[in-house]
């Protein structure tokens, strides 16, 4: 009798767990799943305020449009340029960590680490404001070449169309380099010190130790991070580019994400915006799965 009561109360408790989770999962459903169901808008000519069944059914018309839209080609090209430069720079945090490790552990290292990590926590709006103060037409760094007599007219890098890719990449690295290197510093700290001692006994110098012990120990971390980020190839984000976009840089700074914003929320062409997002999502998934399978072939285990 007592036993049954206990079983019942245990069962009750089990469902209690489920009931407690439901309100939170409802939020997940409302804000993460309902928008995915919202992909259905891409096959209708959705007009705000009109019920979906009353909108014209378009089939795959918007998806066909993607392949005919010259703006897609241009913004995709911009996205790819940012992404490719970014991929070439992926070893930079690792290199930074190795160099920082050579500084030893003193106040200088702490100083470097503290202030190179800080920009990661500063919002893009503030970074834009800093860049505006330094690089706008009357900014202090823009007027510097004129004062030095190097050029006649001050040229603001903020409105230079050609160098947009490099300048934005520089800002991105400025913001994140210190922060991204922390994971590698942690990896270095985890290396068995005996390896270094053994190498030194064998006559290896600092450089050789770095090349043959530190670097290989970090490659694992590098590969894992690389694969995790492959899916974000097309997701350059929009914050940075939206802030730095102006009439002069627009043709080169507009990435896919920003184009989706312009189509959907400025031109109010919701359905087409959703269609582009869908294609982007599929490409991302495809990239992650491919990268994961490649990793499995190369290293014998998957990352995700």
């Amino acid at each position: 009798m007592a036993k049954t009561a206990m079983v019942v109360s245990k069962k009750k408790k089990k469902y209690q767990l489920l009931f407690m989770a439901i309100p939170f999962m409802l939020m997940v459903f409302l804000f993460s799943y309902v928008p995915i169901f919202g992909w259905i808008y891409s096959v209708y000519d959705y007009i705000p305020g009109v019920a979906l069944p009353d909108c014209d059914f378009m089939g795959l018309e918007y998806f066909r449009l993607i392949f005919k839209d010259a703006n897609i080609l241009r913004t995709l090209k911009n996205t790819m340029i940012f992404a490719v430069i970014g991929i070439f720079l992926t070893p930079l945090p690792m290199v930074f960590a190795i160099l920082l490790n050579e500084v030893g552990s003193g106040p200088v290292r702490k100083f470097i680490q503290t202030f190179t990590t800080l920009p990661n926590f500063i919002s893009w709006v503030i970074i834009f404001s800093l860049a505006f103060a330094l690089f706008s037409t009357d900014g202090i760094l823009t007027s510097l070449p004129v004062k030095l007599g190097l050029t006649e007219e001050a040229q603001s890098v903020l409105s230079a169309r050609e160098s947009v890719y490099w300048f934005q990449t520089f800002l991105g690295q400025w913001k994140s380099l210190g922060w991204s290197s922390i994971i590698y510093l942690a990896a270095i700290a985890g290396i068995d010190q005996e390896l270094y001692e053994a190498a030194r006994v064998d006559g290896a110098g600092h450089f050789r130790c770095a090349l043959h012990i530190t670097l290989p120990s970090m490659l694992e971390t590098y590969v894992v991070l690389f694969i995790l980020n492959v899916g974000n190839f097309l997701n350059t984000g929009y914050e940075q580019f939206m802030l730095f976009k102006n009439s002069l840089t627009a043709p080169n700074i507009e990435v896919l994400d920003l184009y989706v914003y312009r189509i959907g929320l400025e031109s109010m062409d919701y359905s087409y915006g959703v269609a582009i997002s869908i294609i982007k999502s599929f490409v991302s998934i495809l990239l992650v799965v491919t990268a994961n399978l490649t990793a499995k072939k190369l290293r014998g285990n998957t990352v995700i």
Partner: protein
Amino acid sequence: MNGIRKASASRRAFQLFNYCLLVGFTLICIYPFWYILIYTVSDPAAVEMSSPVLFPRGFSLANYKNIFTLSGFFPALSMSVLRTVVGTTLSVLSCSFLGYLFTKEEMPGRKFIYRLLIFTMYISGGMIANYIVIKSYGLLNSFWVYILPGMISAYNIVLIKTYIEQLPASLEESAQLDGAGYLTVFTRIVMPLSKPIIATIVVFVAVGHWNSWFDNHIYTRGNESLMTLQYLLYNYLNEAQRVAEQIKNTSNIGGIEQMISSISPKGVRMTITVLASLPIFAVYPFMQQYFVKGIMVGAVKG
């Protein structure tokens, strides 16, 4: 003997180069902040003539006095503080509680529900679909649009769940034998034991809320009372950029002067920038101890 001396000479050369490189980069990271700081505490009249470079020109707090009389400043500051406090509290409490529930293996359908949550890390509806949905919920121009959509974060739940799982199970079991329910165990035992991970997540969620401006831009542009500090700054910058562009494209001298006088003074922009970065600088020393744990957040967030 000779070989060792040679190696140490090249080593010293490398060290010198390395120090210069890293310290140089560090100075590039600091200087922009230093520049706006010295600009805002300089004497405004002296700054008009020529900009400060390394040290303030004169000293004056006129810029700051100015900001405190600026009509939109205090409401925007309060809104930023409010969304940070409310958003962080609700998000961290619900993520911790849900993370705790997911450690309970007896929960019916636990694996399935957990997978449903993890799925959201890989796929999202996208900006436009989110917008349509939020609009249909009637959340446009509402304070809750800052709080609710990002409240349940799969990444943070994974972190908390992993942390709770490695706590000794015996503490929880003995409390349960004493008749404590899940809620009591969570508030009395699990929360206090998980302080390190919860503190980490509090810091990162709070910084995210403080820095956020895009939701203000797309969801609550129409309601001025919901303007946050970051978005106030964004508006000033946008205006300045627009005017700068117009000046470039126009040859009408009279028009230019009119435009320049209509632009908000540089001092206002710079001062808001200083004040908006101040909280980050203030919590930064406290944050540093959580970095390595925070990396996990960064790593999954990618």
